[in-house]
């Protein structure tokens, strides 16, 4: 990423509500111009973090800097940061044009220039011609774009997005993911994107942070987080993981330290088949096989261990191993990921 001053820097930020630590000693650097995601389950503190950056809440402890400037005590309207809300928060009594142009109107931008920039923005989000309508007359996807246009028109240095695609159906969501990413790259603004959907985060982000119970468990590129999860939580939340512990771990690696192995890294062989050199192998029995179109997900019972999840691509349309069959699982130890317990 470019520049030495991060767009957003959180230094040991905490936000307490009574006894509850919604955000717990979070330190993050978000670089200028990057698409940064905050990923985690509900209640993990990612939205609170976002609100702290936006200025809707003040941290109990810690420091927030926006482009090097401390943001403490600055209300939202004094920060060069704009937000796309989860419920879009469009003003129902104003038309689309008035909604989008709201920030400019507040700043007393002359009408002619305001109208021009509103049209520009509506074109950017691919909604030309709906200017005169009211939010109630738009579909969910259209409202989402209006909210985006309304936030972008002020040329903020950082754009915050709070689970903006949550209310959309799958096809629309995937389409919007591509569009959002394209817009971000075109406009060059730093995007901070909150989501609980790990596929979304992996698909769109330059880097992401995984949140759990108010703390950041790992920060890295999608590949880093997926291939080298730092903790059991990350291994399990981002993608599916098989976590191997105890006796089985010791048998396979010689040490009782737990590790994780991704389902797609495991090959399923006939029981008793030959295993390539250096690879680990366990015996098991197919408990369940779920056909998912492009691949099949198997759950394999393994003696004295938790069931393994294995994913096989359906290259041959035919053969799908049926429940009850005995199988042998094999994988390379290179794909082991050591886990740090928190």
């Amino acid at each position, binding site marked *: 990423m470019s520049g030495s001053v991060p767009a957003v820097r959180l230094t040991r930020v905490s936000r307490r509500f009574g006894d509850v630590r919604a955000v717990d000693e979070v330190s993050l650097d978000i670089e200028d111009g990057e698409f940064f995601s905050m990923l985690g389950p509900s209640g993990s503190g990612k939205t609170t973090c976002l609100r702290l950056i936006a200025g809707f809440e003040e941290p109990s402890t810690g420091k927030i800097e926006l482009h090097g400037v401390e943001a403490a*005590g600055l*209300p939202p*309207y*004094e920060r060069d940061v704009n937000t796309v809300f989860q419920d879009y928060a469009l003003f129902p009594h104003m038309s689309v044009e008035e909604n989008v142009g709201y920030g400019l109107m507040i700043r007393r931008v002359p009408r002619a220039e305001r109208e021009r920039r509103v049209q520009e923005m509506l074109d950017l989000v691919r909604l030309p011609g709906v200017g005169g309508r009211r939010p109630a007359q738009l579909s969910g996807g259209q409202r989402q774009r209006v909210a985006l246009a309304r936030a972008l028109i002020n040329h903020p240095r950082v754009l915050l997005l709070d689970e903006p695609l949550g209310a959309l159906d799958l096809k629309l969501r995937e389409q919007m993911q591509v569009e959002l990413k394209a817009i971000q790259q075109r406009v060059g603004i730093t995007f901070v994107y909150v989501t609980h959907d790990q596929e979304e985060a992996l698909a769109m982000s330059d880097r992401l942070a995984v949140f759990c119970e108010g703390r950041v468990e790992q920060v890295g590129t999608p590949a880093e987080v997926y291939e080298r999860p730092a903790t059991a939580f990350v291994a399990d939340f981002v993608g599916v993981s098989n976590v191997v512990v105890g006796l089985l771990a010791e048998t396979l690696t010689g040490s009782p330290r737990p590790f994780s192995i991704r389902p797609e890294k495991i090959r399923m062989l006939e029981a008793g088949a030959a295993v390539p050199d250096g690879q680990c192998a366990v015996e098991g029995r197919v408990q369940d096989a779920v056909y998912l179109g492009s691949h099949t997900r198997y759950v394999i019972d393994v003696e004295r261990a938790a069931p393994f999840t294995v994913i096989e691509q359906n290259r041959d349309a035919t053969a799908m191993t049926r429940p009850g069959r005995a199988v042998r699982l094999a994988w390379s130890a290179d794909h082991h990921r050591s886990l740090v317990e928190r």
Partner: protein
Amino acid sequence: MSGLGRRLSTFLYRRPRLALSLLLAFPLLGFAVFYLGSLSALVLQSFFHLDGFTGQVVRRLTLATYGDLLTRANLDIVARTVVMAALVTVAAATLAFPLAYSMARYASPRMKALLYLAVLLPLWSSYLVRVYSWKLILAKEGVLGWVIDAVGLGWALERLLALPVIGGPSLSVSPMGTFLAFLYVWLPYMILPVAAALERIPDTLLEASSDLGAHPWTTFRHVTLPLALPGLAAGSIFTFSLTLGDFVVPGTLGNSALFIGQAVLAHQGTAGNVPLAAAFTAVPMAVMGVYLLAVRRLGAFDAL
């Protein structure tokens, strides 16, 4: 100008507690001083006493005024008012029920909205005018008298008016007339909670009852009525409490037998006996307190 506005806004944004205090200061201050202060003055006054000789209120705490309440005449006033309140409540419940039932269970959505409006409209209209209208209706030479004569029941009305306690020279100057007027003005207050309570009864309950072999009347007695009870109780709170404190209706349609409200008004007026008026006011408050406790168990608060 806007610069100043922004600076002030930021100043307050950083101090949420100060902002809150500013918001609430005026309303709460005004409220505390005028309303709560007055209520305290009311209680305080009831413990003062009016000196019969000087006509001045003696500002020394005493129970003498409450003692004055316990005279025969005053106890009569209290008893009269309480009995009237009870009768009005019972009559209102009976009269309200059929309409409430139709509104809740038989009316189509459009009809129901119209009926609700039809019940709400009198409720919102001038209370005083509604009471006054009964003076016209009940006058000896008025509408009701004419109708009764027309159907040949004039003699029955004469007999009623001749009755000792509740009769009078004319319906418009008698406890009976007062009763009718009370019933009229408070009726919407009974209809609405009852209709609301009846509406909340799920159809499936009544279907289940009849499915188990109950005759419609049995279902009514054992399922509908008990479930409508909270609504009836809620409505009764209104009718009871409103009757206890009222002076307009008995003042318009009553005779010289006073009700609590009239006593309060009379004592604080030219007599200047504010302590006694205050003590009298304590009676409906106490009665309502007891009534509310009793009625709470019937679930009236949930039906309000």
